[in-house]
């Protein structure tokens, strides 16, 4: 039996290890395109911060680990899958046969259609090479513009800010992390970042990056602000809590103290930059599947047994679109814990054991320059469901619980890092909260007590 795995990220590596544990004699090959040993993209911010060396980013630290497990890792790109002959075409011109094939090709960062993306000081924040590029330019005092305030962008901030740069974040939506945080949470994180000295321009779209001639920096970044009324010094304005927002409000409602009388009405902002970081989301790596019978939507469509639409071909991790625990629909969950779960489920099924994935739970934890937040499942709520929230802006704390009947189905928390996992427990066990539902509607912060009372019945009688 020869298991071939395309991709050396967490999903591929965990699948290979799980296969080896169950089948000591199978042949296992990982085809990865990067030159480094398997590493974690998640660790990039911590390398930027100087907390670890590059080796600290490796998925496995024993240099003999894969050799000892007889897992062959080859640095080669896969050009094409030939499911009829059960082979893959490799970039070195050779072919590789397989009995079972796992596609764990991950994702690629998006390139916004902006002039200047090809300039040498413009970097994505995804691979080890990207990280090295950022490191070389994000030096003390450097002016850095980061496009995007999503999860990866926000996690990055800590590492970049720690390098002593002047950072400006430009986000198209009205708040930070719009795809994992509601309006209150996204704006609380924004205000926090501004307090930490990060310039944040929301509702902003970068329209061009050009070589600068003003001598102040290497590049000039032009930002258009959707419907915003910008003051003469928009960056300085943004430093005040809610600066841009209050300017908009004042413009709409006739206030005026925040907008100097002399300020021109302009929707264009020019930013100086020595380095531009592009973190505007990722897309599943499925391009090489064109022309095959493998069904692709946002990602590679897989069933509960992690199988694609073609026999003996499985998919896992960021490239896969599998069952969502909360909705039952097929979704791409490009997150570390799901990659690992997928890898383990895929391996079980490749071994011929039918092990169904009950669905992966969407979850994220974020440390935005020191403010910790997390969201789970249907944090945006469900139709007809109850919800409760506690907002403590002065304490930088927020908790939002979303219920479907008496079951917790989603949550958002800011400002705490204690016992967060219990919310996963309640959601994923689909615990009927019973009388605790009304207690939580009154006092949502008692969620850990509810968890203990309802799930640890052997300790609480």
């Amino acid at each position, binding site marked *: 039996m020869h298991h071939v795995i395309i991709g050396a990220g*967490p999903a591929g590596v*965990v699948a290979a290890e799980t296969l080896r*544990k169950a089948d000591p004699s199978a042949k296992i090959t990982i085809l990865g395109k990067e030159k480094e040993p398997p590493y*974690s993209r*998640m*660790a990039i911010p*911590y390398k930027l911060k100087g*907390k*670890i060396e590059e080796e*600290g*980013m*490796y*998925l*496995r*630290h024993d240099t003999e680990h894969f050799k000892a497990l007889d897992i062959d890792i080859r640095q080669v790109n896969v050009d094409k899958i030939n499911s009829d002959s059960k082979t893959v075409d490799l970039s070195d011109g050779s072919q590789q046969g397989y009995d079972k094939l796992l596609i764990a090709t991950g994702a690629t960062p998006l390139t916004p259609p902006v002039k200047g993306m090809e300039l040498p000081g413009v970097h994505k924040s995804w691979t080890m090479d990207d990280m090295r590029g950022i490191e070389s330019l994000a030096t003390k005092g450097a002016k850095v513009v980061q496009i995007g305030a999503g999860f990866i962008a926000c996690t990055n901030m800590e590492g970049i800010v720690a390098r002593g740069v002047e950072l400006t974040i430009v986000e198209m939506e009205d708040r930070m992390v719009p795809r994992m945080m509601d309006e209150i949470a996204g704006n609380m994180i924004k205000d926090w970042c501004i307090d930490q000295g990060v310039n944040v321009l929301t509702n902003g779209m970068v329209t061009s990056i050009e070589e600068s001639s003003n001598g102040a920096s290497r590049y000039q970044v032009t930002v258009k602000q959707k419907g915003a009324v910008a003051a003469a010094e928009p960056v300085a304005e943004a430093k005040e809590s809610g600066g841009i927002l209050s300017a908009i409000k004042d413009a709409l409602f006739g206030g005026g103290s925040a907008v100097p009388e002399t300020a021109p009405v302009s929707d264009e902002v020019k930013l100086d930059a020595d380095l531009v970081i592009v973190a505007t989301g990722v897309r599943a790596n499925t391009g090489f599947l064109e022309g095959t019978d493998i069904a692709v939507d946002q990602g590679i469509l897989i069933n509960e047994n992690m199988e694609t639409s073609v026999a003996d071909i499985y998919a896992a991790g960021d490239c896969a679109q599998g069952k969502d*625990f909360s909705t039952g629909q097929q979704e791409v969950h490009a997150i*570390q*814990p799901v990659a*690992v*779960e997928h890898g*383990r*489920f895929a391996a*079980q099924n490749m071994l011929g054991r039918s*092990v169904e*994935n*009950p*669905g*992966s*739970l969407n*979850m*994220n*934890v974020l*440390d935005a320059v*020191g403010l*910790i937040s*997390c969201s*789970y499942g249907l944090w945006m709520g469900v139709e007809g469901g109850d919800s409760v929230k506690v907002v403590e802006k002065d304490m930088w704390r927020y908790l939002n619980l979303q219920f479907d009947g008496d079951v917790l189905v989603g949550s958002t928390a800011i400002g705490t*890092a*204690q*016992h*967060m*996992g*219990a*919310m*996963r*427990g309640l959601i*994923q*066990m689909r*615990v009927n909260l019973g009388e605790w539902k009304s207690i939580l509607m009154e006092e949502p912060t008692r969620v*850990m*007590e509810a*968890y*203990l*009372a309802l*799930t*640890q019945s*052997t*300790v*609480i*009688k």
Partner: protein
Amino acid sequence: MQKSLLIDADKCTGCLQCEMACSVSAEGSFNPSKSRIKIFPFHDEGVFVPYTCTQCDEAWCLHACPVEAIQLNKETGAKEVINDLCVGCKVCTISCPFGTINYNADSGKVIKCDLCGGDPECAKACPTDAITYVDANWTGYDKMKASAAKAIPGQPAS
């Protein structure tokens, strides 16, 4: 024979000696907020519930870690945080469905019960035997772990 913590909430008086012993042993300071074991008071019922990691077989935290910073101690069965490797990404803290691995902002690392290498301070400090360290198959933890594992889908055998 591996041992595990046996917790009997009926015997807990909420004295917090376990939290003190844990934090001083693990962090060098008497600081319950740094303790790996927590006492949760249920004031209406007059009950105190000591709660910590059960060293579950599913090891959600260990598997979720992107940099292999949580490893199995084969002697004690504990899943231990390797401080030199932990980058502080916190993915384990949201992955553990028991809520028993937490982030320590002072160190920038996560913390969880490691059974003190096989001689847990909390059990030694407990004056009422609400926390004892006994042969694993006595504890009722197996029952607790089994019920939790059954209810939480998502982890096939590794």
